[in-house]
């Protein structure tokens, strides 16, 4: 038997270490379509519970929209279930090209290439366009998939303090001698819910002859007046050289991602990006659903407007109730608790009161910055948020943290 006891023990010990460090992840089983309310079985084997979902990336509430589902059905009926191929052999249908064109138009770029996920887009894009003579300069809080993509690339790497433009400029000066320079940032930072200072970044890029890379996964579809993302919010549409984004969050929530931007960059991805070259094409059912999503959000801003109203209501209500939240404009609203155990205890209390939200702590966020991350959706109605607020206030009173400063909470519970 190849899988001998000593091998099993090594792996078991590693799992024990993960459990001991308190970061062991357990899946919660959802028995309904994704929505503002879901039926959850947690822990596995326990009874099902109806809860308000405050932790999905379903920002526009399109994950289970009837028109998207209908379009997905049509894709299945007319273009089949799968293609059994990568894109460049026999995995590109007319609908793949249609979706790429629609994304290009929506994002205001020159061209777009689909990837199986944005994780794959980020893993493949840097290696496809950069070499040892080049440098990547990244915000320190960029998404893990960008970190992985940078590690797979032979170009030199450096980082700058989160959203610190003075520090970024120092780095651009330091690295002026490189052939190609790329400033790398998320649009909306997924743990803090703040937006990149993209207008300043573009200004610095122009000054130092650098390119700008933007991962807009937590912004595409709803940030900016017409939902074009952080680039629209910061008024720099057309000035971002590389945008990666996902179809797995606001844009239908199924799967898939893309690189969109300068046509030469997109073409190099078609020629060289390994996750594009060596993984299967996106299935027709997902492509057809995503096309409908883009049609819906290109016609009306109704859904992103409702999301904005929900976000404003939620942020204002939490502050008025006496919670400390991270400042920002996005539907990612972290409720700061600072202490890891407190974040887990409150998340548990919320769940028992019908609210599904997750507590995060070190190493996912910096030490002493534990929080419960709440995420709004256009699928939420005010009554959902009122119920969620009631549960938060109940927990806040129980742990006596309402109206308390960061220092006071840390004095009570530690950091």
């Amino acid at each position, binding site marked *: 038997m190849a899988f001998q006891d000593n091998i099993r023990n090594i792996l078991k010990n590693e799992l024990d270490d993960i459990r001991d460090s308190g970061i062991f992840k357990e899946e919660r089983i959802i028995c309904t379509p994704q929505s503002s309310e879901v039926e959850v079985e947690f822990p596995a084997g326990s009874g099902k519970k109806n809860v308000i979902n405050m932790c999905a990336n379903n920002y526009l509430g399109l994950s289970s929209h009837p028109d998207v589902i209908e379009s997905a059905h049509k894709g299945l009926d007319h273009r089949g279930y799968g293609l059994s191929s990568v894109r460049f052999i026999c995995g590109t249908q007319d609908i793949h090209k249609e979706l790429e064109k629609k994304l290009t138009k929506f994002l205001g770029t020159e061209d777009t290439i689909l990837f199986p996920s944005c994780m794959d887009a980020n893993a493949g894009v840097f290696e496809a366009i950069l070499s040892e003579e080049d440098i990547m300069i990244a915000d320190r809080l960029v998404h893990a998939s960008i970190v992985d993509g940078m590690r797979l690339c032979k170009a030199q790497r450096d980082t700058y*303090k989160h959203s610190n433009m003075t520090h970024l400029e120092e780095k651009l000066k330091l690295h002026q001698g490189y052939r190609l320079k790329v400033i790398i940032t998320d649009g909306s930072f997924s743990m803090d819910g703040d937006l990149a200072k993209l207008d300043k970044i573009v200004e610095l890029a122009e000054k130092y002859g650098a390119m700008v890379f933007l991962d807009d996964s937590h912004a595409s579809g709803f940030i900016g007046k017409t939902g074009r993302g952080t680039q629209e919010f910061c008024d720099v549409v057309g000035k971002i050289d590389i945008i990666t984004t996902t179809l797995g969050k606001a844009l239908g929530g199924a799967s898939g991602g893309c690189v969109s931007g300068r046509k030469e960059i997109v073409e190099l991805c078609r020629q060289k990006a390994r996750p594009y070259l060596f993984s299967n094409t996106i299935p027709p059912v997902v492509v057809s659903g995503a096309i409908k999503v883009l049609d819906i959000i290109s016609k009306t801003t109704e859904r992103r407007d409702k999301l904005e109203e929900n976000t404003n209501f939620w942020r204002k209500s939490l502050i008025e109730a006496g919670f400390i939240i991270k400042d920002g404009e996005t539907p990612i609203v972290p409720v700061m608790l600072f202490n890891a155990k407190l974040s887990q205890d409150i998340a548990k209390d919320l769940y028992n009161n019908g609210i599904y939200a997750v507590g995060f702590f070190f190493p996912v966020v910096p030490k002493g910055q534990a929080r419960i991350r709440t995420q709004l959706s256009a699928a939420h109605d005010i009554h959902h948020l009122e119920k969620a607020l009631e549960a938060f206030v109940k927990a806040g009173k129980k742990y006596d943290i309402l109206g308390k400063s960061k220092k006071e909470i840390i004095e009570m519970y530690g950091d």
Partner: protein
Amino acid sequence: MSDIKNAILEYIKNEYLEDEDEDEIDFDTPLISGGIVDSFSMVSLKVFLETSYKIQLPDSKATPDAFDSVNNIYKLLKEFNIQ
């Protein structure tokens, strides 16, 4: 010796601490395991050491353990005859 350590400490303060950070750091403060420098942003420190001391640090040497305090970094530099 202390000149090199002080230069590294000064770099770490400027590079990794935010203005609002109140905690003092010294030669023994755990940098990686203490959450001051994460494995991703550690690359800036590597670039600084390579540029300042004109050395090439292979990935096998530039480990989280080797970078976990100013004293550890100094030990690493000594292997490259920097002291």
